[in-house]
């Protein structure tokens, strides 16, 4: 089990979750292919997750994005069977979660995967330190030891000096830091975030996003992050899965989503994203045409388009786009202007 | 949790009575801890005299209770229990003594003969009779009203808001010995029994009826202090003959005159010692009872005070009851 060939931290294959009695019957028949409204009309069941497959690499920040009701929260809960999936496969670190016994499942939850919740889920009758130590407490870690560990984590999330407070004495952002600390305290390999910052004010949300990025750098956990906020997804996600009506409509990097939306739904989603901030030169460079002078400035392919503008304005020569030391293409002023004006002749390449 | 509780109860019960199953009279309630009215002297035991809801009964009970407490050093409880329930109290241990029993041959049969949880403890010396009464002014105005055959003629007089288009026959406490429904049916009277709910309601209505010349037909009984204050006339129902009240549904005759007697629980008779002796010896006249009852009802005395007054004035009588 542990030595399965795929090195993914999480593997999900053909995952279904159908709420309502008769879910198995729906799965067995053709009804599974009905769209959600028709399914509900016909069987009274709701398909929250429909045939979802993906892999999360170790150390990756994987974002699942979708509007409310798209099934993303159900999906994340299916990973540790907080909601029991109806069909499909979930493997964490190679281990089949769906086959795990209740005791084994508890072990996975205790040591391998922990979760941060939208509404924090703190225990108001416990002090901050005891909230953070909760996971260790139920594992049976002695009081002194778990308090020491909790204090360590508290200082990691910047809550030094709040150990003796009660949750309701803290601001929302600080409460979520407690939630974060609680998830971190058990030292899991994977952390699941269920819209953790959507209940926070915009400014605090930004701080917390930065905090997650910092933590990810420092502790290097695999993270699955659920959000309905596209900018949050783009900011955090190495890869992003967009969900709609229970299914993943597109999975890719931020650039792929913005540069090459799979369908109108995704296109609609990403329409207001300032593309010059997300797309890199790789997306707009073209093969040098004969006559293009190749002695212009040189920029790496991963440079966001907006950063190329200054260079282009300083030099009238086409910019050489370099990837891995080799020329990937060129971009000149006209290309940049056309891109910024919204004409995107190259986007046809998206299907590549 | 439930199972554990049941198991607990079971264990408790088993340990209390051994393994033969629990019978009702093994109840622990009969040995309620003594409240100890006087912290100094250890009481000789606790006697529970049921209090039935009429003042004559209470008079007897309080006099006996007073003597038990002050002459024999017993602790006395006076639980408020209605007539027939008192008999059941013999079985559960809630009652030791009924100090004034009005007949109840059926209950005697059941609890004394069959279940053997109670025994008779002799007459109280009081003669009791139940009947239907009207205020004297009605008899003066309508001399023939005292014959039950003529009652229908006067039914209109007795109509009230509670009896509708029939005449009202006012009854007392729901627990009283009663043939009223059967009598009305079998004598074909156009009357309806209206329950006043208490002795007090009867007394008040009777007093008002005589004082304000209001018509009233009501259930009442002798001995009662009221007869010395308000003139009441008994309505003659068909006379009592031996056995005419054997079937409660077919009763069509008046109530018999009864020797009121005392009933005690078998246990009390066996283990009550001097207290039982005193109860057995208790015997007084209707006048004695009426005097105490009158003090309780009309002189604002508590039962204990009225009993004390009588005891102090009648030493010779009660001295004879005290066991040697």
């Amino acid at each position, binding site marked *: 089990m542990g030595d399965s060939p795929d090195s993914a931290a999480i593997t999900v294959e053909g995952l279904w979750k159908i709420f309502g009695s008769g879910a198995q019957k729906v799965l067995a028949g053709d009804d599974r292919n009905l769209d959600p409204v028709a399914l509900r009309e016909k069987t009274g069941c709701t398909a929250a997750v429909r045939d979802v497959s993906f892999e999360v690499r170790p150390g990756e920040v994987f974002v699942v994005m979708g509007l409310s009701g798209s099934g993303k929260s159900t999906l994340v809960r299916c990973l540790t069977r907080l909601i029991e999936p109806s069909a499909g496969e979930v493997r964490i670190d190679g281990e089949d979660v769906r086959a795990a016994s209740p005791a084994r499942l508890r072990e996975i939850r205790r040591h391998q995967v922990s979760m941060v919740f939208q509404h924090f*889920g703190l225990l108001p009758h416990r002090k901050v330190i005891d909230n953070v130590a909760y996971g260790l407490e139920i594992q049976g870690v002695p009081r002194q030891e778990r308090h020491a560990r909790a204090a360590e984590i508290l200082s990691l999330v910047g809550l030094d000096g709040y150990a003796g407070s009660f949750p309701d004495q803290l601001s929302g952002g600080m409460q979520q830091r407690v939630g974060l600390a609680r998830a971190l305290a058990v030292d899991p390999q994977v952390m699941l975030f269920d819209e953790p910052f959507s209940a926070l004010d915009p400014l605090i949300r930004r701080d917390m996003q930065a905090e997650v990025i910092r933590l990810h750098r420092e502790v290097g956990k695999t993270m699955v992050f659920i959000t309905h906020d596209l900018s949050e997804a783009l900011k955090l996600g190495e890869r992003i899965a967009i969900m709609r009506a229970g299914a993943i409509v597109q999975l890719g990097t931020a650039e792929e989503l913005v540069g090459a939306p799979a369908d109108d739904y995704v296109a609609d989603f990403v329409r207001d994203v300032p593309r010059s901030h997300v797309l890199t030169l790789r997306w707009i460079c073209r093969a040098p045409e004969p006559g293009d002078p190749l002695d212009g400035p040189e920029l790496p392919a991963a440079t966001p388009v907006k950063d190329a503008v200054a260079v282009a304005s300083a030099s009238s020569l086409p910019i050489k786009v370099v990837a891995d030391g080799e020329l990937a293409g060129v971009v000149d002023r006209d290309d940049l202007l056309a891109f910024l004006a919204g004409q995107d002749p190259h986007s046809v390449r998206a299907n590549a | 949790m439930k199972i554990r509780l049941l198991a607990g109860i079971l264990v408790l019960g088993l340990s209390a009575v051994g393994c033969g199953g629990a019978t009702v009279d093994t109840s622990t309630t009969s040995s309620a801890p003594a409240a100890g009215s006087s912290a100094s002297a250890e009481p000789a035991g606790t006697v529970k005299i049921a209090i039935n809801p009429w003042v004559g009964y209470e008079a007897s009970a309080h006099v006996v209770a007073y003597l038990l407490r002050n002459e024999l050093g017993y602790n006395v409880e006076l*639980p408020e229990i209605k007539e027939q329930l008192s008999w059941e109290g013999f079985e559960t241990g809630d009652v030791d003594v009924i100090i004034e029993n009005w007949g109840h041959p059926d209950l005697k049969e059941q609890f004394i003969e069959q279940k053997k949880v109670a025994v008779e403890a002799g007459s109280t010396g009081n003669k009791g009779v139940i009947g239907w009464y009207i205020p004297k002014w009605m008899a003066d105005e309508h001399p023939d009203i005292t014959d039950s055959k003529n009652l229908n003629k006067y039914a209109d007089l007795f109509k009230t808001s509670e009896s509708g288009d029939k005449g009202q026959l006012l009854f007392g406490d*729901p627990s009283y010995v009663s043939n009223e*429904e059967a009598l009305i049916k079998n004598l074909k009277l156009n009357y309806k029994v209206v329950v*006043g*709910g208490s002795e007090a309601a009867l007394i008040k209505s009777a007093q008002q009826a005589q004082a304000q010349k209001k018509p009233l037909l009501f259930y009442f009984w002798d001995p009662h202090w009221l007869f010395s204050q308000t003139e009441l006339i008994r309505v003659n129902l068909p006379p009592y003959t031996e056995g005419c009240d054997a079937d409660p549904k077919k009763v069509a005759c008046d109530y018999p005159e009864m020797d009121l007697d005392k009933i005690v629980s078998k246990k009390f008779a066996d283990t009550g010692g001097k207290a039982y002796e005193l109860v057995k010896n208790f015997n007084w006249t209707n006048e004695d009872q009426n005097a105490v009852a009158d003090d309780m009802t009309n002189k*604002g005395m508590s039962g204990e005070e009225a009993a004390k007054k009588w005891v102090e004035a009648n030493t010779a009588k009660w001295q004879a009851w005290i066991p040697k």
Partner: protein
Amino acid sequence: MSSTTVSASSGFRLPRWAIPAGATIGFVAAYVIFRGTATLPHDDEAPQFLAVTDLREWIDDHRNDNPFFLYFLNYIRLGVGALHTLFQTVLYALGWPGITGVMGALAWLAGGWRTGLLALAGVSAFGVLGLWQSSVDTLALVGVAVLLSLVIGIPVGVWAGLSARVRRTVTPVLDVMQIMPTFAYLAPLALFFHIGAPAGAIATMIYAIPPAIRITALAVAQVSPTAVEASTSLGATRWQTLFKVHLPLARSTMALAVNQTIMMALSMVVIANLISAPGLGGDIIRGLSRAQVGIMLPAGVAIVVMAVVLDRMTLATARKDPRARTRRTDLAVAGALAAAGLALIPVLPAVWPENVTIDVVAPVNDAVRWAEENWYAVTTGIKDVTTYALLNPLESLLTSAPWWLVALAALILAWRVSGVRAALTALACLLAIALLGVWEHTMQTLTTVTVAVLVTLVIGLLLGVAAARAPRFSAIQRPLLDAAQTMPAFVYLLPALALFGTTRFTAIFASVIYAVPPVVRLVEDGIKGVPPTVVEAAVAAGSTPGQLLWKVQLPMARRAILLAANQGIVMTLAMVVIGGLVGAGALGYDVVSGFSQRTDFGMGFVAGVATVLLGVMLDRITQGADRRTSPRKRKMS
């Protein structure tokens, strides 16, 4: 689109009032034609009654040799009895110094000096009123009943809170238990557990369990699902989550469950005296059977004092911030109180010294007599007008109408107000009542209930509207309503009895004052719950206050008002049945009589069952209020 949809197919539209008016005319015509036929007159010797009486005789004869009794019921009786004796022994051993000290200490810990002093004063009041012994007996009985209720109720409640399926199973049972008039519990209990303190404790326990279960379930179900999920996601077992998350978070609401259980127990413990349970109930029954308010009043006051003390203590516990440490001074005072009380046990007499009691019997009796004599014209006037104008005509209408006509009317009414299912349940209840042989008495009780409910609603609406519109009036009224709702039902019989003697009207009066407070409160809340923007809009459109009330506030508060009617009916029924003790007659009297006369046991038992059926029926007819905003709305959809 409303009621007329039914006839819309005939091509022309009737005015909205046509159908109700037509139905009314139809019923009047049917009544005139069939009046006096198919009535079900009461028969004391009905075979149904005799069968139950026989069953009781059989049980009485076999109580000590039938295995079900010998090895099961009698053990329960015995266990509860032993527990009661234990409580009694402890309380007696503490004596008044001990009880006062310990209660004072507990109250001080629960709610600080105010509650502490209240408890000290309250416990002393038992003694001063001359009711020490009865009060302690009552306390012991309440203690046993509450303990058992919680021991059973809390686990069941927790289970119901955790599992929706259990909740669905338990809820309807609790619904029925809560609309069951207190009286109805007694006969079956006497049958199975005989009479005395254990039976009283069990009756009280059964009556007090529903709020324990219901509120506990609510408390547990209300626990933040995220907190539970967070705990599960960290790998907690179900027991760990239960003890570390559910129970701590549900704690303060569960303290309310304890509070409600105690309150229910206190109101039942008095009635349990009818099956010979000891305590203050005895004094109240004694007062009733002597028609002496002077005897009842101190006992009533003692019950209310006990209710208030226990209510404040448990409420204070419920409201207490679970994190706040008990202050050292409070601990010290409480400790000192308890120690002083315990230390004084050997020094002071165990029973309250008689020379520090005040005897209010004579003065109260005098006052009542004075009121009787001086207000006689007024009280009799009110009583007679109500009786002749409302009670008697309605009673003769209901008892002389054919039973099928009454059933049909109930069916249609329930259908209109609450839908098909409710209507069928109501009909089933009525038919069962007819089969049980208590039709006539049920109709009489129904008459009394109807009149009482009408009066209650009129008064409740007036006071509720007044309170909603005049904040100052509301501020004065609120504490009175609070106090009124703390009082056990029985206490309301007192003023009624004092003013009106024993008649049907007495029960009506008592039930009106019993049911008005919750009705007022629901109406007031309903009107206040109308969104301020709507009120603002109406005022901006130039509505007069009267128009605002009639066109906006009352229609929008309709739901709350119908709920108030439902509550009022259930409470009124409970009280009217208790009114059997003070002349209300019919079913209530049958129950009382069933306890007093062995030959009437069957009738009393059946009457108890009938009150339950009547309660379910009335509840079903009016429960539509609870479920939907308007009877028309559903037809449109």
